[in-house]
C-alpha cells in the first residue's frame, strides 16, 4: 500500500514553524503533589502531576486542571515540536520524548510548563526516564515506523537542565519502554528480553542481566514492584533487590 499523508506535508512545514511559547512565570511555586498519584509507563502520552493532567499529541503539550474531575479545564496548550511521543514526570519537571529529541519542561507554574532545555538526536522512537542527575533515553528502529537508524540507550547529564549533555551511548538490540528504581534501570527489548542495568554510577550503566521468555514492552517500578506491560498482558516482579527482579504472577487471558 502506498501512502502519501497530507499530514506528513504538514509535519514538514511544522519543522520550520518554530513557535515561541510565551508562558509567564506564575506565582504558584507549590511542589507537585505526587504522593496521591499513581504511576504510568514510559510510553505514556498522558500523565498526572498534582491536580494537573498533561497530555502530548504529535505537536502539542496540553494542560488540564483536574481539581474537579467532572470538569477538566484546559489551562494552556503549547506547540513543542513534531513527532512528540512520550511524557514522563520527575519532581517538578516533565521530560518529553519526540522522534528527534528530548525536551525538559519546568512545572514551576503547573498550569503553564516552561521549556528549560532540549537536546536533539537522530530520528528514532524515544521514551525517556530520569532521576536527579541523569536522563535515560532509548532509541530504536526495531519494528516501528519511526524511521530510526540506531538501537541504543542514551545517557544524558541533566544536572544543568538547560544544557542536557549526551555522556554515554550503549548499543542494544531493540530497546523500548524503560523505568528506574533506586540504582536499577530496566529496559524493555520486546522479545529480546528485559535488560537490567546498575546505574549507581549514574553515567556508566552497567549491564547486569537480561530476563527472557516474554515480550516486554514497558515497565512501571511501583511500591517495590516492577509491573511489566507485555504484548499479551502484564506480569509482576519483586524488587526487594532491585538488580535481581523475582517473578510474581502473570495476567494474560
Amino acid at each position, binding site marked *: *500500500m*502506498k*501512502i*502519501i*499523508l*497530507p*499530514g506528513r506535508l*504538514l509535519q514538514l512545514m511544522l519543522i520550520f514553524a518554530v513557535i515561541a511559547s510565551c508562558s509567564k512565570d506564575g506565582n504558584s511555586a507549590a511542589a507537585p503533589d505526587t504522593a*496521591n*498519584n*499513581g*504511576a*504510568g*509507563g514510559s*510510553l*505514556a*502520552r*498522558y*500523565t*498526572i502531576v498534582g491536580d494537573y*493532567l498533561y*497530555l*502530548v*499529541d*504529535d505537536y502539542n503539550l*496540553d494542560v*488540564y486542571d*483536574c481539581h474537579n*474531575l*467532572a*470538569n*477538566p479545564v*484546559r489551562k494552556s496548550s503549547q506547540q513543542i515540536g513534531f513527532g512528540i511521543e512520550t511524557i514522563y514526570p520527575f519532581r517538578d519537571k516533565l521530560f518529553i520524548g519526540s522522534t528527534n529529541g528530548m525536551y525538559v519542561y519546568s512545572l514551576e507554574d503547573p498550569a503553564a510548563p516552561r521549556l528549560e532545555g532540549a537536546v536533539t538526536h537522530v530520528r528514532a522512537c524515544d521514551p525517556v526516564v530520569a532521576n536527579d542527575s541523569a536522563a535515560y533515553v532509548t532509541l530504536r528502529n526495531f519494528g516501528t515506523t519511526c524511521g530510526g537508524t540506531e538501537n541504543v540507550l542514551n545517557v544524558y547529564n541533566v544536572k544543568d537542565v538547560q544544557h542536557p549533555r549526551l555522556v554515554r551511548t550503549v548499543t542494544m538490540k531493540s530497546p523500548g519502554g524503560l523505568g528506574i528504581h533506586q540504582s536499577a534501570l530496566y529496559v524493555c527489548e520486546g522479545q529480546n528480553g528485559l535488560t537490567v542495568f546498575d546505574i549507581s554510577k549514574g553515567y556508566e550503566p552497567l549491564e547486569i542481566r537480561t530476563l527472557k521468555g516474554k515480550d516486554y*514492552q*514497558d515497565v*512501571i517500578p*511501583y511500591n517495590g*514492584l516492577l*509491573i511489566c*506491560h*507485555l*504484548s*499479551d*498482558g*502484564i506480569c*509482576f516482579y*519483586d524488587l526487594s533487590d532491585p538488580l535481581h527482579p523475582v517473578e*510474581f*504472577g*502473570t*495476567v*494474560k*487471558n
Partner: protein
Amino acid sequence: MRLQLYTVVILALMAVLGSSCFDNGWGRRYQDKKPSAFVPIYGIDSSLRTIASASPQPTVAAGKIYTLGNRLYQVENSKGIHIIDYQDVNHPVKLAFITIPGCSEVTVRNNVLLTNNMNDLVSIDISDVSKAKLIARVPKAFNRYFFDQAVVARPAPSNVYYVCPDPWQGEVVGWKVEKNVEGAFCKTN
C-alpha cells in the same frame, strides 16, 4: 507612493512565480485524477462514544498501563481498559473491563479514569467498577488519535485506490466511491 508601486510589482512577480511552481510541482500531482476511487466520509459516529462497564475480557492487544494503590489499569488497544486487582500479587484478578472505543491512554485519579475515547478526553467514574459512569467529555482534546487512524482506515475491497484519510479532518465513518477523483494516492493491498 513609489514604494507602494514597487510592492505591487513584487507581489505580482511572486504570484506569477508561485503559480508556475504549483503548475510544475504539486499542482500536476493533484491533477492526476483516478476514473474511480474511494473517498473517506468524515463525521462523528455516536455509537463509538458510548462507555460502559463489562465483565472481565481476555487480553488480546495489550496496551499502556497505569497503577494506583493495588489496582492496575491496562489498555486493550482501541477497545477499552482492563481493571486488575493485584493485592495478592501472585494471583492478580481481573475485576472488570471498561468499554471505551478508540482508547489508547490511561491515567487514574481519585477513582476516576482519565483517558481518551477516540479523540475526546473523558473522565470516567469507576468508584463502582461494575457501573462505570462518564462524568466529563472534552471533545477533540486528543487529535493524535487520527494520526493512527489515518494509517489504518481504508476501504474494504482489495487493490483499489482511495483518498488517504486526512487526520486533520477527523473521524472516518465510512467510504463512498466517486468518479474522477483527485488525490487518490493510497491503494489497498
